[in-house]
């Protein structure tokens, strides 16, 4: 997966989890949970969608790597 594909996938997942979030507000380093106001259930759903879409197991220990758009894209592209 290229970084662009990963970024696209993440944005799609966020749009599903939090439909009212304005992606324009999203910088590569915005903290997804605090910055976008995702609660723990939203975040779980976000991880769930990424896992489904990529077919990858994402462990709880990997969550910190999904904290921002940039780190998440790197994590997904790196896999």
């Amino acid at each position: 997966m290229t970084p662009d594909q990963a970024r696209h996938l993440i944005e799609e997942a966020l749009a599903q989890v939090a439909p009212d979030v304005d992606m324009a507000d999203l910088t590569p380093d915005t903290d997804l949970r605090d910055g976008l106001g995702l609660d723990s259930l939203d975040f779980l759903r976000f991880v769930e969608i990424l896992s489904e879409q990529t077919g990858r197991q994402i462990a709880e220990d990997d969550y910190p790597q999904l904290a921002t758009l940039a780190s998440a894209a790197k994590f997904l592209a790196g896999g």
Partner: protein
Amino acid sequence: MPALGADMDEGTVLEWLVKPGDKVHKGDVIAVIDTSKSAIDVESFFTGTVETLVTGVGQTVPVGTVLATIAEAPAQPGVLRPAGPPAELKVPERPAAPQPTGPPAEGKIPERPRPAAPRKRGKKIMAAEQAHPAVTISPLIRKRAHELGLDLAMLAGSGPGGAVTRADVERAAAERRREVALKPPSPTVSRIRVTPLARRVAAELGVDLAGVTGTGPGGAISEADVRCAVPAGETTPAREAASVSEVVPVPEAAQRPAAAGARSGAERALSMRQAIGRLMARSKREIPHYYVSNTVDMTRSLDWMHERNRKLEVSERLVPAVLLLKAAALAARKAPDLNGYWLDDQFSPAGAVHLGLVISLRGGGLLTPAIHDAADLRLAELMSRMRDLVTRARAGRLRGSELTDATITVTNLGDQGVESVFGVIYPPQVALIGFGKITERPVAVGGLIGVRPVVVTTLSADHRASDAMTGARYLAELSDLLHRPEEL
């Protein structure tokens, strides 16, 4: 129109999911109601057959207005009534002629053989009066029933000789609250003794029972009394069920076009703020809150949860909030003084623990639906119920019962980053539990300083119902439970 929460005054029918003739079961979703907060799925309080939809789509009516009439099914199948519109709604042959039957003595129902098929409400009047015409009821219970607006004659007694006990009265009151029926009796009417037949005829003829003089025993209103109360020239009864709708006057101004569902976001936000404002102002005005708090080491709970999650798919994993909720529910079960309602100047404990969950909506505002019997659910189930509830709350697809029967409420602001929250109690509940963010803090452990994940737990409680000692014990129990996650 049921009151879907203590702060609701009126509601708009957005959609009917049933039509006359449909069979419904208690708990079936039969309509979608728009409240000031959200669209709510409303469930039937009865099992039976839908007779009429009285309030039309798009109409806004006050709480207590009849939405629909449902003919209740016989309790014993096949005893009397075939399916279909009940005979009572048919046009009487000679409507104008007052029945010469006089006041129904000893609770006999004219034209109705016993054992009668259970018919709407009021069946119990007969049972009680007939079986125990002279049972003594203590003045205390009589007073209590009067305060609660209950007709003692309506209650089946469970005491010696069929006496109505205090428990009976409380149970009936709780039942009535829970039912907030599709067809609640008006407060005035419920204090008047009325035979079921009279009640029915009054409904058919559009007679206000409050204005009828009863000539039966104890001033009970009989069918004849009702018929006498109809002014001459107005004795034509409803020709068909459909015209029953005329019985319920809907103020012109309250009627809105069917586009009520298209309430704008700004309107919704405003009305929600107002509803929350009214309820919270009432809480602070009426409830003497006391507050206690405690800091709980979450190390064991989180370690246990992470270990458990490691083996599971993302969709099956738990979040810390679910452990907190389960512990809160279990502790509530051990603290009956905190789990229930303050009503009519006294505390009325709830049997089950229905855990209200404060859910903030993305557009602002909040809803507090309940997870029923939360203390009895396994963690995985509680987790999926919580996810489901949050999703539906935000999509506006909650059920009426979920919004009305929370017995104690939890607010979890951990995701918003605050350390602690001292909430405002939702009347008539008497306690609210708050959880802050789980954060790593230096903690003294075994004489050394360690860094541990901790959460601040708080309790706001109604001082009328309990004392701070009770609250302190509750938080101690909560802490114990969070140190033994495997028992959650």
